């Protein structure tokens, strides 16, 4: 029974990862690591809004090839490692049959990015890592680990406490670990922060917080 519906979950899991991962990579010249990172971020954003599985598959393939080019240019660049993780997330969503293995590679890439520059993309490596750990099927089926996910979410908030997606990730991690009160407090805090934000993602953050507040 353990594996029965585990893979289906991954499709949902990765949607949210892209939503929070796609921020503004550093501007750069064409085909530089920064430019490749920006193009992967664009693929991720398009994939997030795309319902056609074939198109998502093509976007994932494009993102993976750009991630490999980026790693080829700068193997230890935090941005390349981070967007390699994002590209692997797209691949996991496009190919559920191999998603569990891909997610493990995604976690390794994000861990590498965190080691190089934990503050990259508003503490993106630990934030996205947290979301993967709390949403993926847990041991022994998949790499999910609610406790480690909570620790990663706490690191993201410690590094960038004013960034609403970090607080949303913390709220979700607390809920997953059975701290309903802490989760509600942080969803409330994320909503308050998002309300005062001028980001283009503001409405999406508010929606996520409100959905979290409605959960028992």
């Amino acid at each position, binding site marked *: 029974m353990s594996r*029965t*519906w*585990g893979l*289906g979950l991954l499709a*949902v899991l990765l949607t949210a990862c892209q939503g929070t991962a796609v921020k503004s990579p550093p501007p750069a010249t064409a085909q530089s690591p920064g430019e490749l990172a920006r193009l992967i971020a664009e693929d991720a954003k398009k994939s997030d809004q795309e319902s056609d599985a074939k198109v998502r598959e093509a976007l994932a393939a494009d993102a993976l090839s750009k991630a490999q080019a980026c790693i080829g240019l700068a193997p230890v660049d935090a941005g390349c490692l981070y967007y390699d993780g994002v590209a692997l997330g797209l691949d996991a969503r496009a190919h559920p049959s191999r998603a569990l293995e891909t997610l493990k590679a995604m976690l390794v890439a994000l861990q590498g990015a965190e080691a190089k520059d934990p503050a990259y993309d508003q503490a993106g490596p630990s934030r996205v890592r947290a979301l993967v750990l709390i949403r993926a099927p*847990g*041991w*022994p089926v998949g790499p999910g*680990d609610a*406790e480690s996910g909570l620790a990663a979410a706490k690191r993201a908030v410690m590094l960038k406490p004013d960034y609403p997606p970090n607080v949303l990730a913390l709220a979700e991690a607390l809920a997953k670990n059975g701290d309903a009160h802490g989760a509600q407090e942080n969803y409330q805090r994320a909503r308050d922060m998002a309300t005062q934000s001028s980001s283009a993602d503001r409405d999406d953050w508010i929606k996520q917080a409100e959905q979290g507040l409605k959960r028992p």
Partner: protein
Amino acid sequence: MDMISLLGAVATLVFCAPGYPGAAGDAQPFVDQFAKTTVANAGWSPGSLAAIYDPTESGGIAKLKNPDAVLTFVPYAFYVQYSAALHLTVLAQADVANVGTEERWTLVGKQGASAQSLSGYTLISTAGYAPDFIKHAALAALSLPGDLKIESTGQILSALRRVSTGENVVVLLDQTQSAALASLPFAAQLKTLAQSPPLPVALIAVVDNRVPQARAKSLQGALYKLSGTSGGPDSLSALHLKGFVPPKLPAQP
């Protein structure tokens, strides 16, 4: 014609697996396909059986109480806990990929713990929602103390960490979980305390006699043959199943 057909409602097969991964929406295409293929092989009219998945105990029970819920696919633990209340009659036993038709459950504790002295302990398991299964099926050979707390969890790794740090916690693992124990970095801190006899893994059952006997019979035959039919293996493998066999249930406690 049965009551469901007379009322024009679609009969529903409710999949319920508390404690296991997956969300209802994600599983829907797989359970839809399974229902479609099974119905075609049973000679039921196309579209006469819908399927729905609920990963929660309370949600699954609520769905099974609806009159349109005529069949259910549940873990054996759920069956032991709720078969009397929900009037479940088993049609077939699932053959689960990489597990089989039966599995043994394993009780794990810290080094030095004993299955004979669990007073003051907490037992944690994905099957913790089914204390009757734990007491009267999986661990029927043990006399469990009255003060043993039983908790349900989907976070079995966290529970095992608590065991490894010396807490008064024991964990009841299914076969897949116990087979993976050696992969844990703290496996040396864990000890097998007891093991269940072989028990069914999962079952398909009729709910409250809501399927007339002849239709139940045709569905049962279709389930047994499903793995050898066109489309059957794909529908089964999407749910990590290999097929179905005649039920072989242990004596009810």
